[in-house]
């Protein structure tokens, strides 16, 4: 038996004989972590808004937001295999806003392959807005339970021109259980190999926008794709078991 195994064994024996000491140790660690969370701008606060104004990279973590996550001009948040629970008692108590000049990147962990997830943690649904001039990427990311009405429909992208930002993409993402999966307003965007399920209004909604949807899989939606005064291309899509598959309106 090598030295490492012996040490492990001693540690286990110690824990078994002295549960109180172990409990105290865990409590101390929790307090230290809580203090770090409260003090560090690199982690969300225990309560209230988390404003990101510098570059932050987080990997392989589970975090809870009890307020608004705001990525400001000059800030960037790079989430790699992070599970983000947005908790609130009412709709909109928690949310995400990427402001002009801010960057949000959500992608899998390079170490474990684990996906980044944005999910509703409490009773309320969360808002998710990418404002004009912001930059973002959703790569193999899950968004669950976002949005609750027309004004807060879920992931909403405003004034985004994909031609001006090669990074803006939604690829192999999964959207489920919100009001609308992705809403584009005066934006242009590509969505590839992504899956949509069970939104209250639609999977994808376009308003004065342009979108190319490639190999999307859309099921169990009231309306799969709704395009109003927009340009829409669907290539290799699988659109099944919805109320309306595609609805394109060019005048009201």
């Amino acid at each position, binding site marked *: 038996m090598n030295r490492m195994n012996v040490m492990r064994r001693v540690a286990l024996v110690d824990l078994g004989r002295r549960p109180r000491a172990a409990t105290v140790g865990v409590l101390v660690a929790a307090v230290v972590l809580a203090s770090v969370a409260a003090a560090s701008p690199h982690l969300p606060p225990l309560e209230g808004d988390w404003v990101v104004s510098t570059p932050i990279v987080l990997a392989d973590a589970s975090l809870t937001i009890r307020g608004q996550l705001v990525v400001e001009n000059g800030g960037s948040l790079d989430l790699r295999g992070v599970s983000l629970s947005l908790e609130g008692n009412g709709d909109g108590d928690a949310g995400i806003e990427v402001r002009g000049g801010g960057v949000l990147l959500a992608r899998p962990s390079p170490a474990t392959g684990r996906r980044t997830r944005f999910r509703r943690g409490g009773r309320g649904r969360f808002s998710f807005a990418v404002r004009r001039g912001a930059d973002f990427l959703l790569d193999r990311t899950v968004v669950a339970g976002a949005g609750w009405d027309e004004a807060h429909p879920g992931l909403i992208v405003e004034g985004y021109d994909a031609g001006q930002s090669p990074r803006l993409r939604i690829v192999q993402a999964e959207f489920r259980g919100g009001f609308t999966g992705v809403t584009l307003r005066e934006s242009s965007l590509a969505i590839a190999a992504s899956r949509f399920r069970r939104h209250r209004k639609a999977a994808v909604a376009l308003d004065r926008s342009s979108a190319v949807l490639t190999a999307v899989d859309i099921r169990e939606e009231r309306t799969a794709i709704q395009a109003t005064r927009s*340009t829409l291309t669907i*290539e290799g899509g699988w*659109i*099944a078991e919805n109320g309306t*598959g595609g609805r*394109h309106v*060019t005048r009201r």
Partner: protein
Amino acid sequence: MIVGHSVFESNVRHVRLVGNAPARIHDSVLLFASDVAVTAAEGALPRLEYDDFVGNLLAVRNRAGASGPAIPASNCFWGSEDGPSGAGRGKGDPVSDGVDFAPWCRQSCIRTARADERDAQRRVE
């Protein structure tokens, strides 16, 4: 709206077009709509080509009927080798008035993406 090489299956309505923006649905499979596969209203005039329509309650509905321009829908398969029913005389999926469905395919004639590109290139030349 351009739809290519896609599958619409078991929706109530597969595609609903309102207004006169250009629209094209090609090389796609439209199956088992419990209401209508493609409906066009208020000047919508989609071009349908190389599509398969099978098992739909109604394959194509032109709201303008016979009074307006017809929806071009040639080279589609209507689920029967003798063409669509409704405004057609076949046993395939029905179409409304105002759908130009001839000539039709006697079996599925969806092209691969590469063949589709080749045809498009030929048209440009």
